[in-house]
């Protein structure tokens, strides 16, 4: 009885080749060096992108994003934060800060909170995916991507708030400000890479979530948000290159507040960090993905 399955299997071999009734054919094979075929993986992720969008929409609805007061809070929160930091820094600096600095602070905080929001949502994305991961085969990368979409949708209204402030303060306006589009692109790329890294790490280290606020705070303080990049003392200048957001936020402030085109060095360093994170994050996430179903 036991031996009979062997010859049946060999007998079954020939006719699955010319299978014509099924329009869908899945092949599951061991992953080479832990990675699934990446082309196929990306195609499948793209085909199911509406899942990531729908997931972000559902989660935002749960956070009352679609109500008037929810939107108001979304704008008010970073605005209040900018005001608090402005007062704090003005006191520390002995009252020497002008209104321009408030615009710099706003722009910087909004951008920084987009990235840190994506990272914070990302940390929870895979672990919070629980049963869906246990029961459904889909490209898991859609979960951190959805976390970035949520952060981005919360970021957009804050941009709208910045514009009137900019105009009211009489800050320069110019075509150089179009640089904001590629810079937002770099922010998204970096946020996506980081979200993937922390999403996968959280599966192995469940206390990462608790560590995150400290790391993110340290990151804010070492970024040119609460101060101008060119105010940094010489011996701390290296932070601008070491900090993944350093040159990016320096360029960001120049473009948005002063309508100055970013320097080549700024763009190069910022792009290297952003795409580096995306590449490392994606490869790391996808290589760990198989584990998620047995580790949750």
């Amino acid at each position, binding site marked *: 009885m036991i031996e009979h399955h062997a010859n049946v299997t060999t007998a079954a071999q020939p006719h699955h080749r010319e299978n014509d009734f099924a329009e869908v054919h899945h092949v599951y094979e061991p992953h080479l060096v832990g990675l699934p075929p990446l082309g196929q993986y990306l195609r499948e992720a793209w085909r199911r992108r509406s899942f990531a969008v729908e*997931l972000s929409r559902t989660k935002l609805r749960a956070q009352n994003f679609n109500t008037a007061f929810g939107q108001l809070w979304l704008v008010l929160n970073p605005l209040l934060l900018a005001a608090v930091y402005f007062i704090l820094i003005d006191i520390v600096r002995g009252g020497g800060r002008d209104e321009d600095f408030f615009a710099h602070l706003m722009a910087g905080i909004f951008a920084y909170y987009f990235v840190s929001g994506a990272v914070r949502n990302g940390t929870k994305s895979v672990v919070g995916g629980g049963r869906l991961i246990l029961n459904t085969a889909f490209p898991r990368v859609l979960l951190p991507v959805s976390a970035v979409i949520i952060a981005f949708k919360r970021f957009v209204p804050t941009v709208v708030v910045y514009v009137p402030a900019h105009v009211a303060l009489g800050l320069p306006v110019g075509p150089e400000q179009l640089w904001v589009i590629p810079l937002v692109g770099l922010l998204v790329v970096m946020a996506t890479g980081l979200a993937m890294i922390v999403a996968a790490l959280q599966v192995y280290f469940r206390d990462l979530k608790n560590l995150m606020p400290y790391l993110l705070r340290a990151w804010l303080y070492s970024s040119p948000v609460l101060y101008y990049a060119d105010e940094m003392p010489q011996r701390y200048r290296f932070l601008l290159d070491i900090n993944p957001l350093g040159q990016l936020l320096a360029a960001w402030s120049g473009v948005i507040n002063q309508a100055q085109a970013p320097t080549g060095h700024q763009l190069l360093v910022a792009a290297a960090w952003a795409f580096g994170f995306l590449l490392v994050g994606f490869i790391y996430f996808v290589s760990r993905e198989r584990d998620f179903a*047995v580790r949750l």
Partner: protein
Amino acid sequence: MISLSGSSASSIVVQDVSVTYKTTLERRPTLRNAITRMGRREKVVREIEAVKNVSFDVPSGTVLGIVGANGAGKSTLVRTIAGILPPTQGRIDVFGRVSTLLALGVGFNRSLTGRDNVRLGGLAAGLERDKLEEKYDEIVEFAELGEFMDMPMRTYSSGMYGRLAFSVAVNMDPDILLIDEAMSVGDARFRRKSANRMRELCSQAHTIVLVSHALGSVRELCDQAIWMDHGVLRMWDEPEAVVDAYTEFLEVGQDAVTLEDV
């Protein structure tokens, strides 16, 4: 002896598949533990060989039952066929759209409504949005959940969970349906209804893989059965023969408990 492979095309071809995975023994894996553990050479990761060199195929339109003790690798095998857990060795070909009804059921986020969970689960499984909207009413009607669909799933009873999961799985028009011990959901009436639906699906051209401890339903519904034991395929034959051999192996005899539709 019957010819199990038949003459029709196969829906699922499993060739020499092994599945091993590592899992942690820690209650909650943390960075702090990982750091304090360093230098102590303590082993907290265990490798599990859940499925070992299993080969079989499921001709299209066949209902295959999988029986075996707890921890025999049945669920891992089904999850591998579903593409959730890629094999460590071997190859699996699946021809057709798969719908799964696995032990843990639908609904990954208890704070979201039933409607959101169904929609998100469907999109993740690769269904098109308009197709999903089309199916949605059928799902709700079959599950008989009514206004509960717009309430958070944490307000559901476990029977309601099961009903929704069953309804989603069977109403997605899959070519292949993978079911893992999820037959005993809901109250007596819903159980009869789901058993009828199962019989209906089994008699249609669907390919079904059914993991069950209810040997009675394996015998009644299945065309073929396999018996998994410690990750190894012990037997692949007609359900009668497999159930007989399995119960003999268990030395329990076919009393009412093992045959009951649980």
